[in-house]
């Protein structure tokens, strides 16, 4: 079958999924799975070397002929969409079933198919107007999924914030596509690198898509939307929806000429997003908020590579740009895989204990060993540690940066601070995820809810296993995925085509595989040795304290204390402390809240000023007819004077 027929099949089954979603949940699941498998097939055909698929029709929508195109770059994102879409649908069937959510589950199924369809449309459409329509549909579907649980105030507020900030970004995109169409005379999209006059449009692209991607100062909608949405929605939002922003930036920086400063700005934004995003993540006490901020970090890593690729393309097509771009595109897959896994894990914890507050959990490994193990795997991957996939893409990216430094090109000095910031971000990520794993899964249960947790069922476990397997295979056999990545790189810049994987990547894959085998073997051996020597279970050493309790364990806030102290200027933590007083203190407490610094300290005050000015302006509109007549008379008088002076003032 050709990619075209497969995509048609996918579209038909997803539309059928929308139609039968409200009533027939089993049929809906089957149709969604058929749809995503067909999409996956089409994308893999193109990534596997089949010719690009292009289809023009005489059929008009909004006055423009339909024009679809599937090349390796779209296919790369389509693969991610279908994998996360499929596993998320399976997960949702157990996580958000009709029995528990009779009102919202049917709606959720409809919007899920709608979201998949609109994102698919976005990725293949090659007409500016249709791209905008798909983009708008995608935003609306995401909004309804985020606010699915609309009985909860936070979910409504998170959805609303998402809708508003998305539309602020869409405004830039309207300006971008409109100007592009006006300059070129057609809404058709395609490579147009030679028209140098289009370069300044890149800034509109960067802001418009940057809002959706969640680049640091534009990320304000991201934490609350991700935290309050149902977990399968958080997974697809973080794993795929953010990548649509990245897709836009990659796509249009490949098709259009870019200004000379683009690489510098993108790499700088990326480095800031990476470091600040992960610092915020470490300071969070809410598990899903932590994961959300970690997405800001990963988007930053992706943008660093993108910036390096732009710089490389600028500097006589330096080949380190290719490594960085390959790292970026691989990281798009990797982040999709491990963040989906982590959100599924967080959802499983939420399902079992009804709380996202990490300091109310603890000791879950005993009752939820599958979730604990898989979450740990995701944590190793997301911290960029060998032998899993996060390390491979970060390694490619670092290799690009180091090659740029070694080339000693006078203007590649920017990679020095960027590489250092990335390394620090990596170390903070390790701290953040050792905290998340430890506080949630290790130690003793801190509350009754944590004590009575239960493991998730087969469907949720199955979707976690699939994403974990992807993380594993991308980690130990990166060579297998290289041809696909290099085809996508060649779409961005044909001069960088490289069908053969670079030699060090083969070595790295080998080293990772050896590491997996040896680590598993030696872990098992040490466990056997310990058992053979004799195991005894005793209480944890407590310094002879008479009444240790589970609440004396290190909490999420105390674990992050050192680093949030260093970054207090950024995090601006708010503390409420009631110190113990007197010889027999009755009670004492200390509550710390990490505000959304950008939203609460920058956007909200500016918004307040605007509201206040508007309130003053509103005083003119009070409903008294006499005054309105006075306005009209004054206006007419003014116009009359203007005419009397001959239009000159």
């Amino acid at each position, binding site marked *: 079958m050709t990619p075209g027929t497969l995509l048609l099949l996918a579209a038909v089954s997803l539309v059928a999924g929308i139609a039968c979603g409200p009533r027939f949940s089993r049929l809906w699941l089957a149709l969604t799975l058929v749809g995503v498998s067909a999409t996956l097939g089409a994308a893999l055909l193109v990534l596997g070397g089949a010719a690009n698929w292009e289809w023009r029709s005489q059929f008009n929508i909004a006055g423009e002929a339909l024009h679809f195109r599937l090349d390796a770059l779209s296919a790369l994102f389509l693969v991610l969409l279908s994998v996360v879409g499929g596993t998320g649908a399976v997960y949702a069937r157990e996580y958000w079933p009709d029995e528990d959510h009779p009102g919202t589950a049917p709606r959720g199924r409809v919007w899920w198919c709608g979201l998949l369809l609109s994102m698919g449309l976005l990725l293949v459409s090659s007409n500016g107007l249709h791209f905008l329509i798909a983009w708008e549909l995608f935003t609306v579907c995401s909004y309804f999924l985020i606010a699915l649980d609309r009985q909860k105030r936070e979910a409504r507020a998170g959805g609303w914030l998402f809708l508003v900030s998305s539309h602020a970004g869409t405004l830039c995109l309207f300006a971008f596509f409109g100007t592009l169409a006006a300059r070129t005379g057609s809404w058709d999209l395609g490579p147009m690198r030679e028209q140098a006059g289009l370069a300044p449009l890149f800034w509109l692209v960067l802001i418009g898509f940057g809002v959706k991607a969640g680049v640091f100062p534009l990320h304000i909608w991201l934490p609350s939307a991700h935290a309050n949405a149902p977990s399968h929605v958080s997974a697809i939002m973080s794993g795929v929806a953010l990548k649509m922003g990245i897709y836009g930036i990659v796509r249009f920086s490949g098709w259009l000429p870019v200004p000379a400063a683009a690489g510098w700005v993108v790499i700088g934004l990326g480095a800031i997003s990476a470091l600040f995003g992960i610092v915020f993540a470490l300071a969070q006490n809410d598990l899903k908020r932590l994961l959300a901020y970690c997405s800001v970090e990963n988007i930053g890593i992706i943008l660093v590579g993108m910036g390096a690729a732009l710089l490389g393309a600028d500097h006589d097509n330096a080949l380190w740009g290719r490594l960085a771009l390959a790292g970026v595109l691989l990281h798009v897959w990797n982040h999709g895989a491990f963040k989906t896994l982590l959100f599924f894990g967080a959802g499983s914890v939420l399902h079992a204990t009804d709380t996202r507050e990490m300091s109310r959990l*603890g*000791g879950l*490994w*005993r009752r939820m060993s599958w979730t604990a193990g898989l979450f740990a795997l995701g944590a*190793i991957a997301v*911290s*960029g540690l*060998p032998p899993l996939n996060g390390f491979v893409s970060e*390694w490619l990216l670092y*290799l690009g940066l*180091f090659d740029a*430094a070694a080339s*000693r090109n006078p203007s590649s000095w920017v990679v*020095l601070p960027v590489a*250092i910031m990335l*390394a*620090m971000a*990596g*170390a*903070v990520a*390790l*701290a953040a995820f*050792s*905290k998340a*794993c*430890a506080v949630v899964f*290790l*130690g*003793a249960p801190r509350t009754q809810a944590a004590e009575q947790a239960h493991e998730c069922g087969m469907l949720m476990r199955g979707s976690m296993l699939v994403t974990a397997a992807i993380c594993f295979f991308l980690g130990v056999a990166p060579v297998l995925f290289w041809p696909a990545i290099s085809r996508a790189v060649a779409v961005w810049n044909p001069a960088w085509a490289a069908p053969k994987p*670079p030699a*060090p990547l083969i*070595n*790295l894959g*080998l*080293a990772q595989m050896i*590491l997996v085998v*040896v*680590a598993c073997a*030696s*872990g098992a051996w*040490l*466990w056997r*040795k*310990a058992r053979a*020597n*004799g195991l*005894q*279970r005793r*209480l*944890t*050493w407590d*310094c002879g304290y008479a009444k240790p309790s589970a609440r*004396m*364990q*290190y909490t999420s806030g105390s*674990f*992050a204390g*050192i*680093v949030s102290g*260093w970054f207090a200027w950024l995090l601006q933590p708010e503390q409420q402390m009631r110190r113990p007083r007197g010889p027999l203190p009755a009670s004492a407490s200390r509550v710390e809240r990490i505000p959304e610094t950008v939203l609460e300290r920058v956007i909200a005050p500016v918004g307040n000023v605007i509201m206040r000015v508007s309130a003053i302006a509103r005083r003119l509109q009070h409903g008294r007819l006499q005054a309105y007549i006075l306005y009209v008379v004054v206006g007419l008088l003014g116009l009359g004077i203007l005419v009397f002076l001959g239009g000159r003032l």
Partner: protein
Amino acid sequence: MIVFLNLICRIALWLLLAPLLPGIINKVKAWMAGRRGPPVFQLYYDLARLWRKSVVLSTLASPGFVVGPAVAWVALMGGALLLPLGPAGTVMGFRGDMLLLIYLLALARFCTAWAALETGSPFEGMGAAREVSYAILAEAAVISAVLSLCIQTGSTSLDTMLRPTNGTSAVLLAAGLFIVLLAENCRVPFDDPNTHLELTMIHEVMVLDHSGPPLAVILHGASIKLLLFSLLLAEAVLPVENLSPALAVVVLAAGVFVVTVGVGLVESLLARLAFRRVPLLLATAFLLCVFSMLIAWKGGTP
């Protein structure tokens, strides 16, 4: 076949030589204090004893409590095997293996912290939090040092990038890396391996609940890490490439010995820093490495 033999010899070398270093440090400290001190081979005896002992597990601990140290040891050993041994080079060198080394050390840190947090003890939580937090600054210093070497040699492979650095840059790099070595290996002035007051420690407090073979693996891993950092420092600074292989090995061994004695001297002459000063010293190490990197960037073409 040759590669395989080579690998076995290297593993044996690291296995057997690593526990010597803490012995030397302790001997130096004893001499400085006018004591006789424990024998140089004390750690070997301890390890052999621990390996035969039974294990006491916390009631809260999962199998990760035992598996974590094993994975950490494998990661440290893997990092050690990536390091070239002077004229003998590496077994498996490739472009970018330097980054693998740094991230293997990070993996070891993750596993140690995980195993420490298994017990749910606030002491170990404290130690793990300190370990992962201070590592952020140490990581920044290490990556600047690596960038400095990379700029100087134009290479990203350990085999070729550990060439002698020249002049001021080498001095700065040596000072920076030495401070990082002290921090990463939990020596004075960052940590005191001898103290028994849990509240003041980083690394020792993380292993408070470990016993028997897992503790042996942790102690051996720590000694591998110490040897790894000392050898890295010696190779990054000492100009051995023009010497004959035998002489080069002797010079490198002498370099490692000097570093070890230096650690012992620092430990005898300095007190442990207050915790709020630790970030300052690490930031100093970071700045030293950054200046070395800037000198390399401004210096002559490679």
